[in-house]
């Protein structure tokens, strides 16, 4: 362990951009302005090279071979797990399960924990601003077990109705599954309160951290969430790899999610026994190169630090909010006081898809649609919104380009 204290490096967005090859691409002859980071972030050279290096220098199947390459690949994968553990400050590597992404993580908990612990009449509390991936897995397990789903409503500004939540909690509540940051609205939810209130009621808490981990420092031991999931691809890492954090005692008590190789201790036709954590939940050959690549992404983000990243992104969000408010026909959806770098909006008389198409031809990539959060759209009685979601490599000039391209939309539709 190094005890050297790093001198904070001033945040240099140009230097960061230089690390992301795709950002110098042009689309339709225009500079790419990538504002769809909430859907997936771009990858720095360090991550791209890391994946190539794995296949070129340290690749074999893991946790099996006695040979050199297998051991090298295993070491690299487990070193990456340790990086992820440190990144989220989990108490142990046994609490860090590799999954395909947040969706698989939630499905794993809903199926494994849910089948073992839910029965008819038990209640699962979700919020109105959940992504479909934190709704549908719970509906599936509720159908199988007879458990009931309750929903925390949101205010016009896009905040959770905490008083209603308090009223929903009871001794029937077994699980509270909640997003950390809303992907459609940007709202940062008051997780500490939710977790302490849920625990006081005897319920567990699963947090969907997809939209939080690229923007905020997270600390599993301080947060005290029971489960926390996120996807690597939103954290500048590869797609197809994500993390389920779970408290060790809970994971230990849960039955396996999938059966197969790697997750067993012994197998006979009379019965099998399971491997220790985290491998009990990692059946089959894992996504080796991308797991190692996620470690590289964690290194990259950690070297810059969330203090600098957060300050830059908050400044971008404030600037973009001000710019868009200045356009009369624009209505921002989601104005919670505490937001991550996500800006959802509508323009009077113009459908979000038409806006998205016109922006696209200006090189500006935004998401349009329901953002896999149809209940949020229903809440605001809209079919879709336009969403600009910012990353650490975005610039104030790119916000200007967004505003200018929105003026072009107005011209065309005026």
């Amino acid at each position: 362990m190094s005890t050297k204290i790093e001198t904070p490096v001033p945040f240099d967005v140009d230097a960061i951009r230089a690390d992301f090859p795709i950002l110098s691409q042009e689309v339709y002859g225009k500079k790419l302005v990538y504002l769809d980071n909430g859907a997936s972030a771009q990858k720095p050279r360090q991550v791209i090279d890391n994946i190539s290096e794995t296949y070129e220098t340290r690749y074999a199947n893991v946790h099996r071979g006695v040979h050199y390459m297998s051991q090298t690949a295993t070491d690299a994968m487990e070193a990456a797990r340790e990086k992820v553990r440190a990144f989220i400050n989990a108490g142990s590597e046994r609490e860090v399960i590799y999954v395909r992404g947040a969706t698989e993580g939630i499905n794993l908990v809903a199926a494994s924990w849910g089948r073992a612990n839910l029965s008819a009449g038990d209640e699962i509390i979700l919020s109105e601003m959940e992504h479909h991936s934190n709704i549908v897995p719970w509906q599936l397990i509720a159908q199988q077990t007879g458990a009931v789903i309750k929903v925390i409503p949101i205010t016009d500004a896009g905040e959770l109705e905490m008083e209603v939540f308090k009223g929903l909690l009871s001794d029937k509540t077994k699980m509270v599954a909640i997003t950390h940051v809303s992907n459609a609205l940007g709202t940062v939810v008051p997780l500490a309160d939710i977790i302490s209130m849920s625990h006081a009621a005897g319920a567990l808490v699963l947090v969907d951290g997809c939209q939080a981990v690229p923007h905020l420092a997270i600390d599993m031991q301080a947060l005290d969430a029971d489960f926390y999931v996120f996807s690597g691809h939103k954290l500048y890492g590869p797609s197809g790899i994500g993390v389920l954090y779970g408290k060790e005692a809970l994971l230990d008590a849960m039955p396996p999610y999938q059966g197969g190789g790697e997750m067993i201790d012994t197998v006979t036709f009379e019965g099998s026994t399971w491997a220790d954590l985290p491998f009990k939940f990692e059946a089959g050959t894992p996504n080796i190169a991308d797991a190692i690549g996620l470690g590289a992404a964690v290194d990259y983000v950690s070297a810059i630090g969330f203090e600098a990243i957060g300050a830059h992104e908050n400044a971008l969000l404030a600037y973009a909010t001000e710019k868009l408010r200045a356009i009369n026909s624009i209505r921002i959806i989601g104005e919670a006081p505490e937001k991550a770098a996500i800006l959802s909006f509508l323009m009077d008389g113009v459908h979000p898809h038409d806006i998205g198409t016109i922006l696209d031809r200006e090189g500006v990539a935004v998401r349009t649609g329901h953002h896999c959060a149809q209940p949020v759209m229903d809440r605001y009685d809209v079919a879709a919104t336009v969403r600009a979601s910012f990353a650490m490599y975005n610039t104030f000039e790119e916000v200007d380009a967004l505003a200018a391209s929105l003026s072009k939309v107005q011209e065309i539709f005026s």
Partner: protein
Amino acid sequence: MAGDPSDLYQDLILDHSKNPRNAGPLDGATHQARGNNPLCGDRITVYLTLDGDQIADVKFEARGCAISVASASMMSEMIKGKTVEEATALFEKFHALVTGGTSGEGDGLEELESLAGVRDFPTRIKCATLSWHAMQQALRGAGEEVRTE
């Protein structure tokens, strides 16, 4: 440049999207079907009144983008009074137009030719064809929802 947004959003299309013709429910409709684009949440319901083999009346209700509403509006004007066979033939010509199979000229597409620009915006072709798929579904009498996916 092919695919400039101003080629797509021509005045005629904007006019139809802002002032859709034949919008609203249709009392006494004999056939109807819903179209749904789950990718974007756009929805349309097409109502038809058939008199024998002839489409006597058409109306639609839509929640969608300019392209889907304009296409539905133009379709409603074009197929009114046509036979089922003629409407189906028109759909085939229109489909070929927006997917780039034909120029559309001389195909009797009239105002629909203004939607030819959609071919340069592949992600938007489904918007242009949603109401037509719903119309076809209604004619088949299935009454079930059609999806673009």
